[in-house]
Structures are given as structure tokens and as C-alpha cells.
């Protein structure tokens, strides 16, 4: 009876070892995915600041253009 239990335990241990190895690999994959995600986030931050900068340039330019436009209208009226 002890022998049967021992062989059962042996099987279970082998299963656990295999399962743990699988989990370890999955965690390793997750770490890699996280690294990739972090890189993408960095890229988004860069892209975001580029877009903000471009929008700011548009706002500044539009603002000055609008003022010129207004001045001209008044000029034309008088």
C-alpha cells in the first residue's frame, strides 16, 4: 500500500514540476510582453508630444493670421 502511495506521490510531484515549469515560462512571456508594452508607451509619449507641439504651432500661427485679417478688415472699412 505504501508503494502505491509512493508511486502516486511520484507522479504528482512530476506533474507539479512540469506545471511549475510551464508557469515559469508563461511569467517569462508576460515579462517580455510588458517590456514591449513599455516601449510602445514610450513611443506614444513621444508621438503625443510631437502632436502637441504641432498643434501649438497651428494655434500660434492661426492667432497671428486672424489678427492680421482683422486689421485688414478695419483698414478696408475706413
Amino acid at each position, binding site marked *: 500500500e505504501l508503494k502505491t502511495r509512493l508511486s502516486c*506521490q511520484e507522479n*504528482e510531484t512530476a506533474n507539479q514540476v512540469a*506545471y511549475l515549469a510551464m*508557469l515559469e515560462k508563461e511569467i517569462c512571456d*508576460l515579462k517580455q510582453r510588458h517590456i514591449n*508594452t513599455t516601449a510602445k508607451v514610450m513611443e506614444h509619449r513621444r508621438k503625443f508630444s510631437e*502632436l502637441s507641439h504641432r498643434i501649438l504651432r*497651428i494655434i500660434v500661427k492661426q492667432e497671428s493670421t486672424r489678427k492680421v485679417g482683422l486689421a485688414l478688415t478695419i483698414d478696408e472699412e475706413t
Partner: protein
Amino acid sequence: FTNQATQVNAWDSILLKNGEKIVELNKAVEKVKTDQSAMEKELEFIAAQHTELEESIIPLEQELSKMPQQI
């Protein structure tokens, strides 16, 4: 013999406990995987939004680049 039986019982209890811990660990890993996938989707969404935003900025820039020459 009794000693051996005690030993086998002890192992049983260790195996059982480890088994439970592995099940829990597996659940945690599955949860992390699901969350990771959700974040990856979100990142794709953000990338799409950026492209969209950029596409709407380009005509504005083009229009404005013409302006000073018109005045």
C-alpha cells in the same frame, strides 16, 4: 515501517499544499495575462487615435502654410 508511513503522510501533505498553491498561482497568471491583453488592445486604440489626430492636423497645417502668402 511506522516511520516510513509518517514520512509518506508528510509528503502527502506537502504535495497537497503545493498543489493548492500552484492552482492559485495559475489563477494569478491567467488574470495577469487577461489584463495584459486588455492593455495591449488599449495601446492599439491609442495608436489609432494618434493616427487619426495626426490626419486631422495635416490639413490644418497645410491650410495655415498657405496663409502668409495670401496676405
